[in-house]
């Protein structure tokens, strides 16, 4: 019905957060690089804003493809009120689906993203240990 609106709402929030974080992290890195006298910006680590970008891409991509599926099944239409369920007076059913399927979708995508972040940080730690070992040698 309109389950894809829940991940879409999450995508809007995470995109805003990502954009503001990106600005802050870039300026912080620039300041740190200036303080150290380096010309290159960045610590070699993947910035959190970049990791948040992974979640954004999953959420926006999934939302776009699911919206197409809803269009295919006639659940959304290109004219007001856009949602067939709302036009037919089944708002309660629509909200119920959003609260069950939609929330489960958003939660599953977020859980997978948390797993990706955990894996990335483990790999970064391994890399750091290897680099430190090479420096000692």
């Amino acid at each position, binding site marked *: 019905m309109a389950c894809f609106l829940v991940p879409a709402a999450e995508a809007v929030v995470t995109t805003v957060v990502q954009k503001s974080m990106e600005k802050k992290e870039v300026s912080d890195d620039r300041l740190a690089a200036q303080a150290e006298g380096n010309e290159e910006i960045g610590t070699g680590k993947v910035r959190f804003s970049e990791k948040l970008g992974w979640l954004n891409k999953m959420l926006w*991509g999934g*939302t776009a*493809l699911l919206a197409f599926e809803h269009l295919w099944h006639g659940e959304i239409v290109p004219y007001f009120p856009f949602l067939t369920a709302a036009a037919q007076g089944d708002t309660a059913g629509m909200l119920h689906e959003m609260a069950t399927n939609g929330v489960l979708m958003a939660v599953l995508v977020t859980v997978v993203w948390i797993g990706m972040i955990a894996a990335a940080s483990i790999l970064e730690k391994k890399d750091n240990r290897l680099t430190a070992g090479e420096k000692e040698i």
Partner: protein
Amino acid sequence: MTLLITILAASAVTIVWYCHPDSKMKLGTLCLMYWGASIMWMADAIMEYASEGAAYFTPAPADMLNDFFLGLSVVTLGLIIWIVILLIKDPRGVVRAALHRKKK
């Protein structure tokens, strides 16, 4: 069927992305887009399985055909979105070079 086709597309793109780590073709974006959709359809499948039980795995042939057609359309739409992103961001500078050549 739609879920299966999207997962197959996501897996194929992931393999290509892994084999070409230095590629500037923005394969990671396509990969994440397909995986995002796959996870969302997986959530849908979980909910349907919870309500229908084993009947979920035995769809009517007409539904299967419709879902197969939908799956292919979804994969195609994903490719179109990816191509648009690729042309706008132009990581290899191909579009910019072509425009520059035309100006000359």
